[in-house]
């Protein structure tokens, strides 16, 4: 059974098919949500909300469109809804890096886990629009065109958001540059 046949089975009301669809996509949905909100409880809530929404609206999905893009749209909307209620990000405006910083002994001792945490924190502090573009690119491997379609914006907007997101992350994590391989 390919993806199209599976979706048709879901649309026809087959619960086993829906379970299969869930098994195929649960890790990707959870991972996107987890990277978006940096909080396991919220990520679980978002994952559940996404699949409930999927379950309720899969009848409206037209197979000439890309299922993954449709799913991305649902996940990003669920993440944005979650963040609208939390509103806890802080945009790192004008945080210029200290290009002469050497990293220092303390940073040299950071374990990979701590670096991952620092990256996760820095990403979670980006504005939701920047974060959504960044995560679709790096956790889902989407092209600029696919991101533009999922976020309903132009490729130019995607390029500009990613450039801004990279710059903000680079500034925030500059002192860890030798540790970020």
């Amino acid at each position, binding site marked *: *059974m*390919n*993806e199209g*046949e*599976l979706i048709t*089975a*879901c649309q026809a*009301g*087959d*619960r*086993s098919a*829906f*379970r*299969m669809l*869930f*098994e*195929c996509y*649960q*890790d990707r*949905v*959870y*991972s996107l949500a987890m*990277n978006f909100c940096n909080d396991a409880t919220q*990520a*679980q809530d978002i*994952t*559940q909300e996404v699949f*409930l929404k999927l*379950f*309720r609206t899969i009848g409206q999905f037209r197979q000439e469109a890309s299922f993954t893009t449709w799913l991305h749209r649902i996940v990003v909307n669920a993440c944005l809804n979650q963040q609208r209620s939390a509103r806890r990000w802080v945009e790192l405006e004008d945080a210029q*890096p200290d*290009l002469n910083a050497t990293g220092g002994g303390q940073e040299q001792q950071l374990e990979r886990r701590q*670096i*991952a945490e620092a*990256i*996760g924190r*820095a990403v979670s502090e980006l504005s939701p629009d920047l974060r959504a573009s*960044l995560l679709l*690119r*790096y*956790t889902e*491997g989407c*092209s600029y065109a696919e991101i533009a379609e999922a976020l309903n914006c132009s490729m130019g907007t995607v*390029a500009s958001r*990613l*450039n801004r*997101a*990279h*710059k*903000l*992350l*680079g*500034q925030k*994590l*500059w002192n*860890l*540059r*030798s540790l*970020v*391989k």
Partner: protein
Amino acid sequence: MSNQEQIEHVSEELSAYLNGELKASDSQRVREHLLQCPDCRQEFEVIRVGVRASQELPAYPAPEGLWEKLEEALDSSPSADQWWIPQRVGSWPLWAVAAAVMFLVLSSSLLLLTLSSGDGQMVFSMEGTPLLNGKPVSGSARLAVGQQLSTDPASRARIELDRVGEVIVYPSSRIRLLESRPAKQLLALDVGTIQAQISAPPRLFFVETPGALAVDLGCTYQLDVTERGDGLLQVDLGWVGLVRQEREVRVPEGASCRISRERGPGFPYLETASPRFLETLERLESESPSPASIRLLLDEARPQDGLSLWYLLRESPSETRSLLLQGLQQLAPAPDSVDRRELEEFDAEALLSWRDHLEKLVWDDAK
């Protein structure tokens, strides 16, 4: 209007450049601009840290028990329209229900396999019979992460790296695929020769050798590794970085660089340099330079050989450093924008600016 205002900067395109989203001609324009614009280069370094950090974002597996919670929510949802309940299942014969369940179980396995087959790269046999994990490849096969591809003296293979480029594996070679994901393709060359033609943005394609890690910086190159584990890199187009621990050597188009299993990368050089220059340079990869050897190198060097001397300068002991610094300044002076005092103080930024200038001389020589 100042020169600065006339230049069309590329800072807005740097992410797209690093992400491989620019056309080849635009990538080339950005690459060339970066060579001559310190402002954009500084911005590039910041953005590159952001890109690398993004590439480190982890994949989180979903926790156990999510389906059960979801089912609970589905069952208790009055607005769910109950679409999943098979409407005629009650009237189906049992064998039909059993067959449908069996079909779904089998096809789910197939679907999971299909959806997760993104790992790995396609290998094509070009001559003879290459071996994939010991099994003959006739035609094509998929090289998965962790697998080994080997060629005998009569066989040759081509690896197609999705969205990255291609690698030719020459006879009597052995490579392994260590990582394969959109943000990183990592091969290990244990022995033999490969030629890589990479069209992806810099720092997506890597080859591990016993002496150093070769980092693609947008290029075409050939890499040899002997049975002993020493290597030789020859760059035909673009740049390749050779990295061992904190030490990185950037080898530009037209240049070559030896790799020692014990010491890592040597000094990049041009094959067109004089035999005495090349012979002395090779010797100094394993021994400390004496004033006599520095003078010999300076006598034999052309301006385009200055890059070899720059790397030698970077690692020279204090006894020969000022001799080499003065000689190199006469041979291939740093651009006016570089403060001479900073060079004498061995300021890292000033040295890097000088290296950029010396790379341009090599680049011009290659053209």
